[in-house]
C-alpha cells in the first residue's frame, strides 16, 4: 500500500438494484499496476457481502477451493462478526479479480491466517452499517442495539431483520476500520461450531462443476503428448494415421516455449515452461485418448533428462560417506561430543522417495483463444481449477502477449490440489493448442500424463549422527542432508531451513547440506520439506531416546526445555510451551506407556510447521509376515482457535490417511529420464480398509488462528515408523514401507 493512502477511501458501499447492501472493499487498480508488491499486502482488505431485502445474505468466498474447506470457513468468520444466522447465508465463490479480492491463492495453509482479520473487519463493518440503519429507522441510540441472528435488536425487545434494514444500511457511512470492534470469542455462535461444507449438496448429487466438467458451446477435446524422457522435443509423428482416426479433427506439433515459465512469484519461476509435444484434437475425450495411444513420435532427446533414481541413491551414499557438503550451521562442539568415549553415539542413513501429487482429478484446462475483431486485441477465456489463478493470466501474457484485461479466468472447483495446481504447465499447453484453432478446446490429461508430467515431491537422503551422555541427555545432533537442485537452486522442499527440531531448541547441532543436480521437475507437495524432514528428525530423536534408555515422550519434552517462543511474535517460530502441551495431551489421550499386546506398539512424533504445533501417537499391529495395520492415531493440535470444527477434524483425519498412504505405498522412480510408474497399479493409494481410528484433540489457545491443510501430515510417518519399531524392533529408515518389506493392511 502506498504510504499515506487511506484504506477508508477504498471502502465503498453501493445500493443494489432493487434495494440491498453491497459492501465492497476495493483496491484502486492503479496501485496494483504500479506496485506489484502491494498485491500481497493489500489483499488483507478485499471482500464483499450482499444482503437481499428477502433476508438472504450472500457472502463471497475469495480463495480457490481444493478440499481444504475455505469456501465454508472464510464466510463463517464474516457471518459471525455480522451477527448473521448461518442458515441465512448463501456462499458464492468469488470471481477471479485481484482488484477486489487481492491474492486469491490457496497454498501454504495460509488462507485462515492471512484472511482471518480481513474477514472479521468485513463482518464488523457490515454489522455497523446494519446497526446504523436500525438506529435511524427505530429512532434510538445505536449503543442500545445489538446484531444477532440476522436481526438488530433494541434493549426494549423491538427488532428489525437484516433484510428489512438492507436498503437503508447501504446508505450508511462505511465505518473507519480503526473504530471497528470485534466480538468476544466467548460469544461466538458460528466460529468453533461444526458446519457442513457449503458445497456438499452439489458434490453429493454429482452437480458440482470441476474444471474437467466444463462444457462450452462448440468445444472440442484434446490430449497432449510429451516426450517420455523429460525435456525431449517432438520432430515428427504419424500424422496421416492419427488424422485418419475416427473423431480426430486436428493433430500438430507444439514447439517448446520457455516464456510460459516466467513467474513473478519467485518459487514458481522457471517451472511452468511449455514442453514440446504433440496435440491431438477431436470430437470427444475417448477419441483423442485412443488416438494418443496410437501416436508414434520421433523425439529429439539430445537435451532430455537422463536422471536415474538408482544412481541418485548410490551418489547420495558416497556423499554421506565423504561427509561433504556446505556447512549451514555448526556449534563447533559436535565432533568433540561424538568422539567423547563417555557418550553413546548413533549414525543412521535415511532415505525418502520422489512422490507424485495424483490429485483425483487429473490436470485439465479449457481454453478459447478469441481473435480480435476489426483490429481489436486478441483475447483468451480459460476455465480451470487453480491454486493461484493470477498465474494463468501471467502465462497468457508471457507466452501469448495478451494483456491481463483481455484474459478471463473462470475458476472452478479443484479435484485436489496438494501443491500441484500451483503450477500451470497444463494451462500453457491448453493455451498453445487453443492458439492454433478457432474454437474452445478442453485439454484433459490421462492419469499417465498426470503422473509422468508431475512436479514431484523431491526424494532425498539424510545421514544422521547423534550422541547422548551417560545420564541420557542429548549431547550432539549432526544432520547431513543430501537433496536435489535444478535451475541453479534447491528444488522446492529439498534441504533444511535451520528452524527444525531439535536444532532450533538445542545448542550443539551441525547441519551440512549437499545437492545433486537433476532435470526432473519438482514442486510443492503438501507440507513441502516438512513432510520428509519430520520423518527423519522425529525417527532419529526416537533412536537417540532408545540409545539413552529414555522414555521417548519424556526425552522429547526435555528437548523442548523451558516454555518459550523461539522468536516472540512470529507465528512461523516454534513455541516450546505449545509444543509440550500438544505432546502431553496426545500422551494423555492415547494413554502413552500402556502395555501393548505382542506384535503391537505405540509410536510418537511431534512436528511444527505452517504455524501449527501437532503431536501424533500411532498404535500399530504387525504380524509375522510384516503385514501391518495402524489401529489408531491420536492427534493433538494447536492452531489457535478453530473456525469450523467439522472441517478442521476432516483436514486432520485426511492428513493422517494421506500421510499413511504415502509413507506405506508410494514411490516414483526414474530411469534414463523416464518416469517408471504409469498408473495406480504401479502407484497405489491406500484403500478404505486400512483406515485407522483417528482421534483428534484441539488445544484452542488464544493465539492467532492458523491453517490446517498441511501440518497434521508430517508427524504421521515418524509416529508410525516409531510404532513399528516398538512392535517389532525393526527400525524403518526408508520410505515407502513397501520397499522395506512391510505391507499395509
Amino acid at each position: 500500500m502506498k504510504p499515506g493512502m487511506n484504506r477508508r477511501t477504498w471502502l465503498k458501499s453501493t445500493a443494489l438494484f432493487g434495494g440491498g447492501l453491497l459492501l465492497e472493499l476495493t483496491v484502486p487498480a492503479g496501485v496494483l499496476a504500479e506496485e506489484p508488491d502491494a498485491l500481497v499486502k493489500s489483499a488483507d482488505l478485499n471482500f464483499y457481502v450482499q444482503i437481499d431485502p428477502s433476508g438472504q445474505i450472500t457472502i463471497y468466498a475469495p480463495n480457490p477451493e481444493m478440499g481444504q474447506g475455505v469456501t465454508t470457513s472464510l464466510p463463517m468468520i464474516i457471518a459471525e462478526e455480522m451477527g448473521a444466522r448461518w442458515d441465512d447465508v448463501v456462499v458464492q465463490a468469488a470471481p477471479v479479480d485481484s482488484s477486489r479480492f487481492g491474492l486469491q491463492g490457496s497454498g501454504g495453509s495460509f488462507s485462515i491466517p492471512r484472511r482471518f482479520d480481513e474477514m472479521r473487519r468485513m463482518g464488523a463493518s457490515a454489522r455497523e452499517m446494519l446497526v446504523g440503519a436500525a438506529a435511524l429507522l427505530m429512532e434510538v441510540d445505536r449503543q442500545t442495539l445489538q446484531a444477532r441472528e440476522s436481526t438488530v435488536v433494541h434493549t426494549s425487545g423491538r427488532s428489525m431483520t437484516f433484510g428489512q434494514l438492507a436498503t437503508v444500511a447501504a446508505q450508511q457511512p462505511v465505518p473507519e476500520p480503526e473504530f471497528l470492534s470485534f466480538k468476544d470469542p466467548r460469544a461466538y455462535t458460528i466460529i468453533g461450531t461444526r458446519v457442513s461444507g457449503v458445497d456438499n449438496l452439489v458434490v453429493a448429487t454429482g452437480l458440482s462443476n470441476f474444471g474437467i466438467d466444463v462444457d462450452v458451446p462448440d468445444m472440442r477435446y484434446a490430449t497432449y503428448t510429451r516426450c517420455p524422457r523429460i525435456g525431449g522435443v517432438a520432430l515428427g509423428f504419424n500424422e496421416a494415421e492419427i488424422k485418419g482416426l475416427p473423431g480426430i479433427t486436428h493433430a500438430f506439433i507444439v514447439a517448446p516455449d520457455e516464456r510460459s515459465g516466467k513467474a513473478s512469484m519467485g518459487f514458481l519461476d522457471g517451472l511452468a515452461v511449455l514442453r514440446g509435444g504433440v496435440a491431438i484434437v477431436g470430437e470427444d475425450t475417448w477419441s483423442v485418448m485412443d488416438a494418443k495411444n496410437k501416436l508414434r513420435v520421433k523425439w529429439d532427446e539430445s537435451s532430455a533428462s537422463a536422471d536415474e533414481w538408482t544412481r541418485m541413491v548410490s551418489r547420495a551414499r558416497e556423499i554421506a560417506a565423504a561427509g561433504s557438503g556446505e556447512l549451514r550451521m555448526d556449534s563447533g562442539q559436535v565432533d568433540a561430543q561424538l568422539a567423547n568415549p563417555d557418550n553413546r553415539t548413533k549414525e543412521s542413513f535415511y532415505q525418502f522417495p520422489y512422490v507424485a501429487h495424483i490429485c483425483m482429478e487429473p490436470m485439465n484446462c479449457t481454453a478459447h483463444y478469441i481473435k480480435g475483431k476489426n483490429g481489436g486485441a486478441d483475447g483468451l477465456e480459460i476455465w480451470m481449477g487453480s491454486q493461484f489463478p493470477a498465474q494463468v493470466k501471467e502465462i497468457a501474457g508471457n507466452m501469448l502477449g495478451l494483456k491481463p484485461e483481455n484474459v478471463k479466468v473462470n475458476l472452478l472447483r479443484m479435484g485436489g490440489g496438494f501443491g500441484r495446481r500451483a503450477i500451470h504447465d497444463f494451462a500453457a499447453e491448453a493455451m498453445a493448442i487453443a492458439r492454433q484453432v478457432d474454437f474452445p478446446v478442453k485439454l484433459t490429461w490421462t492419469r499417465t500424463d498426470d503422473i509422468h508430467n508431475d512436479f514431484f515431491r523431491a526424494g532425498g537422503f539424510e545421514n544422521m549422527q547423534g550422541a547422548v551422555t551417560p545420564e541420557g541427555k542429548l549431547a550432539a545432533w549432526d544432520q547431513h542432508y543430501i537433496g536435489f537442485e535444478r535451475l541453479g537452486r534447491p528444488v522446492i522442499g529439498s534441504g533444511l531451513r535451520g528452524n527444525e527440531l531439535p536444532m532450533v531448541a538445542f545448542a550443539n547441532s551441525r547441519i551440512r547440506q549437499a545437492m545433486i543436480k537433476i532435470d526432473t521437475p519438482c514442486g510443492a507437495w503438501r507440507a513441502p520439506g516438512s513432510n520428509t524432514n519430520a520423518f527423519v528428525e522425529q525417527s532419529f530423536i526416537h533412536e537417540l531416546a532408545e540409545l539413552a534408555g529414555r522414555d521417548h515422550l519424556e526425552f522429547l519434552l526435555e528437548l523442548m526445555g523451558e516454555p518459550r517462543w523461539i522468536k516472540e511474535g512470529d507465528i512461523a517460530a516454534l513455541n516450546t510451551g505449545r509444543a509440550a502441551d500438544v505432546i502431553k495431551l496426545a500422551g494423555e489421550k492415547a494413554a502413552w506407556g500402556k502395555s501393548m499386546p505382542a506384535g503391537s506398539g505405540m509410536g510418537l512424533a511431534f512436528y511444527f510447521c505452517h504455524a501449527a504445533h501437532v503431536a501424533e501417537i500411532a498404535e500399530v499391529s504387525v504380524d509375522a509376515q510384516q503385514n501391518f495395520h495402524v489401529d489408531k492415531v491420536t492427534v493433538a493440535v494447536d492452531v489457535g482457535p478453530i473456525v469450523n470444527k467439522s472441517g478442521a477434524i476432516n483436514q486432520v483425519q485426511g492428513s493422517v490417511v494421506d500421510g499413511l498412504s504415502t509413507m506405506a505405498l508410494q514411490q516414483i522412480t526414474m530411469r534414463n529420464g523416464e518416469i517408471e510408474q504409469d498408473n495406480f497399479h504401479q502407484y497405489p493409494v491406500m484403500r478404505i480398509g486400512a483406515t485407522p481410528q483417528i482421534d483428534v484433540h484441539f488445544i484452542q489457545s488464544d493465539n492467532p488462528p492458523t491453517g490446517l491443510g498441511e501440518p497434521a501430515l508430517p508427524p504421521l510417518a515418524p509416529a508410525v515408523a516409531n510404532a513399528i519399531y516398538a512392535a517389532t524392533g525393526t527400525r524403518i529408515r526408508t520410505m515407502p514401507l513397501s520397499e522395506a518389506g512391510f505391507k499395509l493392511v
Partner: protein
Amino acid sequence: MAKYTLEVNGNQHHVEARPDMPLLWLLRDKLKLTGTKYGCGVAQCGACTVHVDGVAMRSCVLPVSAVSGAVTTIEGLAQGSELHPLQTAWIEHDVPQCGYCQAGQIMSAAALLEQKRAQDSLPSDEDIDTALAGNYCRCGTYTRIRAAVHTAASFYNAAGQGEGQ
C-alpha cells in the same frame, strides 16, 4: 460409429458412438452427465462408478457396446427432489473434501445398501470396506465415509419397508 439405445436414470437415449467408447465418456461427453468422473481409465480408482441394473460397475472400462442394462449415475440416485439417504448422510457427516471421488464412493455404497436391504441386514465395517475397496479417496475421507454409510443404512432399510423391493 454405431447406434445405441441406452436407459440412463430412467430416460431412453438414442446415441451414436464408437462401440469401443467406454460408458464413462458417453455419459460425460455425449449425455453431459459429468457427475461420473474420470480418474484412471483402468478400473483402479472407482471415480467412474455407476450402476448397471443395480450392480456397481467401473464405467471407464465398460464399452458402450457391452452395456446390457439400465444405467444409473449419481445424477439419478435421488428420487426427484428427495435425496437418497446416502446423499443426506454425506451432507450431515460433512464427508467431502475436494469431492471428486465422492460420486463413485456413493454409487458403490448405494449398491451395498441395496444388497443389505434385500438381506434385511445392516452393513458392518467389513462390508463397507469390501464394497468400497475399489474407491480411492486421496483426501482421506474414509473415516467419514464409513460413518455416513452406517447412518444411511438404517434410514434406507426403514424407507424400504412396504415398498416391496
